[in-house]
């Protein structure tokens, strides 16, 4: 009789702990994982192909829908790449607003991660607290940009509109209240024995492996690599802000947890710094070939009306060339590589998705562990399938 030692089981794509539509084929020896094969692509919408038939402005809403927990960061990566291609300078106030929104978004994204990660492992309470704070941030986005999940706030050359009256106080009250909220989360988890047993020494990825597998973001920093795009290749004025890059030591689930918690605190501090120093001035660059004219001008001035029509229907023609710009999104290094052939459509928009490469290292982390650990490891690398599958 043939020996059937290993059992193959299928996890996902409808499994609640796979954070979307990830499917894993697990080969098991008893309860120990011998081999894990991720299958992705269930959410593939062809964003890169679609972008080739749009004008440069029209691609911005598509980017919101990549990593849908981190829309502001996605907008930022894309507009930075186009601005680099065009060679336009963004006003200081717009840069500061971008940093503020990107950091608020990072807090919101990490709150979803924390809530769902804890929920997967069985700590259900936390989710409700996390979504309470996330709601505050989404309300701020709604007032600022008009949208909650997909705000499409950033524009090529700046941001779509200045802050509405009274919002600065709301952001400040959020920022002031947040550190106390962080303490609440920590009392629930950081020294919780069950939490420690489920996360300590689980899913270890060494420093060398993490680098070799192209892992970025908190997952890389959990392994002790002090590398963050905001410090390594600063953009949008991050070099003028005062913040540190938290790192872990051995690269287990617990290290990635603490790194993200510390990151939220630093993000909160950056939002505060941005509020304190917010410079006065325009929020859009004054480049008439690229930037849409103000609505008031369109209604009064025929030249502005023509410009509005030309930019909205035809777009603009950047020089031939290729650029890469990246940001530190909540998941890792999110980059846009744009190739222009001089026409009004991008020749190629390549998205460098952080979750894609972080997920590719998952088999490395889970092999030799128990099935139950797969849940906490998937939670700890914080994947969003909208970005992986594009």
């Amino acid at each position: 009789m043939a020996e059937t030692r290993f059992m193959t089981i299928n996890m996902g794509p409808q499994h609640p702990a796979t954070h979307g539509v990830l499917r894993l084929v697990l080969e098991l020896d008893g309860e120990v994982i011998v081999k894990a094969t991720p299958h992705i692509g269930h959410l593939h919408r062809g964003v890169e192909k679609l972008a080739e038939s749009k004008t440069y402005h029209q691609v911005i809403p598509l980017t919101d829908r990549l990593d849908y927990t981190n829309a502001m960061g996605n907008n930022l990566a894309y507009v930075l790449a186009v601005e680099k291609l065009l060679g336009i300078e963004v006003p200081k106030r717009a840069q500061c607003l971008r940093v503020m929104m990107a950091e608020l978004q990072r807090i919101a994204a990490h709150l979803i991660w924390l809530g769902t990660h804890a929920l997967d492992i069985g700590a259900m309470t936390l989710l409700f607290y996390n979504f309470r704070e996330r709601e505050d941030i989404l309300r701020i986005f709604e007032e600022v940009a008009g949208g909650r999940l997909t705000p499409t706030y950033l524009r090529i050359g700046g941001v779509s509109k200045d802050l509405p009256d009274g919002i600065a106080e709301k952001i400040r009250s959020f920022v002031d209240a947040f550190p106390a909220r962080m303490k609440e989360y920590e009392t629930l988890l950081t020294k919780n024995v069950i939490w420690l047993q489920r996360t300590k020494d689980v899913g270890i990825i060494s420093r060398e492996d993490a680098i070799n597998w192209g892992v970025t973001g908190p997952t890389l920093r959990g392994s002790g690599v002090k590398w963050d795009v905001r410090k390594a290749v600063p953009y949008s004025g991050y070099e003028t802000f005062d913040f540190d890059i938290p790192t872990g030591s051995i690269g287990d689930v617990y290290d990635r947890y603490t790194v993200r918690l510390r990151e939220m605190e630093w993000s909160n501090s950056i939002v505060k710094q941005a509020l304190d120093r917010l410079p006065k001035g325009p929020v859009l660059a004054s480049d008439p070939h690229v930037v849409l004219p103000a609505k008031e001008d369109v209604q009064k001035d025929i030249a502005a009306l023509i410009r509005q029509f030309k930019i909205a229907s035809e777009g603009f023609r950047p020089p031939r060339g290729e650029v890469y710009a990246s940001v530190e999104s909540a998941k890792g290094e999110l980059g846009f590589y744009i190739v222009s052939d001089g026409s009004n459509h991008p020749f190629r928009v390549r998205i460098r998705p952080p979750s894609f490469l972080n997920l590719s290292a998952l088999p490395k982390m889970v092999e030799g562990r128990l099935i139950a650990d797969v849940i906490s490891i998937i939670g700890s690398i914080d994947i969003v399938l909208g970005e992986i599958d594009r």
Partner: protein
Amino acid sequence: MVDIHPAVKKLQEAFPALTLDVKIFREEVTITVPRKEILEICRFLHADPDLQYQFLTDLCGLDFFPEHPRFEVVYLLTSLKTNHRLRLKAKVEEGESVSSVESVWKAANWLEREVYDLFGIPFEKHPDLRRILLWDGFEGYPLRKDFPVEGPDFDKPFVPEV
């Protein structure tokens, strides 16, 4: 005058027989290298103690249909030591294949699968060259320029084989 990128200088010393086509646009350095040498060059850039391109940030394809050679495979490397970025390109004709750099960076595993999936460029000695985003049995390579954006069969009803 822009200073010569340290990687270009090093590469020229290590591979004197090669002609490197170096372009600089918006301070980004792009080197086009012969297709057959890509693995050796990557290995060198990864291991050289002064450069240390330990990070394969991105690997993607470009389609210049109907030009010849049709494709380019683009490698974006990041040095953890200097935070420099370097873009390598290899021109590939339709039907030709490229050496896999998976042995240098594990990150190339999925990235090369994606290029194979969406452009149809095969990678030699790749340990697991399968489609990644699309399903096995999908016909065509969507990111090629001659693939229609609405799909080749958008006006036909989809009847799955049972």
